[in-house]
């Protein structure tokens, strides 16, 4: 009797002694975020919707990301949000050449990029492609002293004590605490859903609208002169070219090669002064133009292509002779470019931002 009791005790002890790490309480039933893939128009001419495996789109993630995008409290002075420089009404650019909206009030060195169809920018983000993905990019504007100047730890502290955010984070990222990685992932999910594919051009491509003869003539001119870089579909080849803006490139050490273009990232001399081809979608909304916003109108851009090309070693070869267009041809080309303006996209995001 006594020994069998001892046996029981020994049995109990032998199980218990080595298993205490496994006795953690079961976590409550996990909410699984509802993942989705946006619907895509054939006129985008893209195969699929690329996104990093570690951060698939979910309804909850996008909702959280949108709130973060429009929240000025993320910035050091509580006044600047992503939307201060990326306005829905301007296809998410800001209408000025070099923004001074940042916390320091200093002018930035580059023009605010419009934000749409970013999922396909898998060859790099920023004008020079320095950012590999949206997830990595977001820390730039969040922390740069001339942008939101935030301390990432302070952002986390603000979000944790907020009334609404903890719940939104728990729904979007049930397995992670609130941390810089999840903040950036949510922002990326939102910006990846900014898809411009409902312009007149898109309707025309799908056979749901017609272009008039002027627009059609413009389309021809576009195909002949512009489509090698501003490739149809996304209207960018997502590659880097020197389109002849400058002959030489200053290189003050403190700016870490900022004026060298893609060379700053690739260290390839053929990339000196090269920048990522911007999309021509919504181009009627995104003035001023080029990486430094130097041209105020599309007329000026066409003047540049016609007579302003600076020929140097890295110039894109197809631009050596310039692009000569008669006044009538210009008119036609501009009327085609107007068909790329996506009012439905802009309107829906203005409304969405007010919700």
């Amino acid at each position, binding site marked *: 009797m006594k020994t069998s009791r001892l046996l029981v005790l020994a*049995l109990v002890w032998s199980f218990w002694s*080595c298993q205490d790490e496994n006795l953690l309480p079961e976590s409550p039933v996990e909410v699984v975020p509802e993942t989705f893939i946006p619907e895509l128009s054939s006129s985008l001419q893209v195969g699929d919707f690329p996104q990093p495996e570690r951060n698939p789109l979910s309804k909850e993630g996008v909702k959280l990301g949108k709130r973060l995008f429009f929240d000025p409290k993320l910035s050091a002075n509580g006044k600047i949000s992503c939307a201060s420089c990326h306005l829905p009404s301007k296809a998410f650019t800001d209408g000025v050449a070099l923004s001074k909206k940042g916390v320091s009030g200093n002018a930035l060195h580059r023009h605010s990029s419009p934000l749409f169809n970013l999922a396909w920018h898998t060859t790099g983000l920023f004008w020079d492609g320095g950012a*590999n993905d949206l997830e990595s990019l977001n820390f*730039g504007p969040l922390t740069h002293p001339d942008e939101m100047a935030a301390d990432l730890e302070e952002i986390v502290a603000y979000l944790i004590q907020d009334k609404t955010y903890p719940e939104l984070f728990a729904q979007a990222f049930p397995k992670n605490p609130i941390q810089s990685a999840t903040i950036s992932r949510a922002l990326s999910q939102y910006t990846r859903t900014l898809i411009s594919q409902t312009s007149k051009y898109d309707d025309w491509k799908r056979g749901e609208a017609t272009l008039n003869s002027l627009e059609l003539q413009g389309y021809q001119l576009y195909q002949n002169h512009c489509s090698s870089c501003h490739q149809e579909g996304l209207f960018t080849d997502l590659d880097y070219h020197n389109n002849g803006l400058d002959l030489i490139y200053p290189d003050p*050490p403190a700016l*870490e090669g900022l004026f060298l273009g893609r060379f*700053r990232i690739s260290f390839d001399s053929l990339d000196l002064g090269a920048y990522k081809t911007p999309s021509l979608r919504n181009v009627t909304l995104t003035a001023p133009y080029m990486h430094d916003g130097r041209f105020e109108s599309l007329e000026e851009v066409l003047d540049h292509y016609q007579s302003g090309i600076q020929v140097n070693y890295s110039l894109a070869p197809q631009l050596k002779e310039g692009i000569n267009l008669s006044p009538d041809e210009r008119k036609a080309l501009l009327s085609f470019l107007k068909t790329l303006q996506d009012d439905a996209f802009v309107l829906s995001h203005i409304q969405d931002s007010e919700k």
Partner: protein
Amino acid sequence: MKNIAYLFLAFVLIFSSCSEEEIPAQMTVELNFENTLNGKPLQLNSETFTLPSGEPFIAKKLKYYISNVVLTDTQSGAIYNVPNSYHLLGEDFKSTVELGMIPSANYDQITFSIGVDAEANAKTDQTGDLDPNNDMAWNWNSGYKFVVLEGEFTHKTTGERTGLVLHIGRNQNYKTVTQSLTGIRAGRAAQIQLKTVVDQLFLSPNALNASELPSTTIMGGELADKIGENYANGFITIE
């Protein structure tokens, strides 16, 4: 007789439940880094140092990543790859890496890399020592600074205090180092002492003369890669 059998069983159960050998199956290992310049412990904001090229130098910041630490027992062939091994170290910052409990062995070799590997260097939405709030992620070029040294030196020709900024990163400057270890016994807590020799950033194979640098802000390009070659050997050594 039956009772004795029960008793025996009870003993067996008690002892087998956590089988214990002479040498514990696990041991703790800790890496300790000491940063030095001119053969003495580095101090930030101190006026008592010089650069290898002779200029008086005040260091303001020193931070660096080591990653992918591997311990090897070359006799038995036992290899321990530290999981998720990214460690940010620096002066007036962390100087110890605790590997925690690891399988016991007579480790006689350590391998680690200076910087972070290409995969980890391709994105910055990461946590722990790779969290971008550590001020080591570039914000215009996805990836990490591997070695950061900032300070001021007195320029030989102008006599002026001149800022020196080294931000060395990029995949080609990820350098792997293997060193022998002595005195580590399986099952016993081990402390590995490492010395980080700041001088070596300027010494060999590429001797750099601070007052003759084309730019004293080095964040990429040829000069950065030369410093990368310099830190590949003799920058972090076993004491």
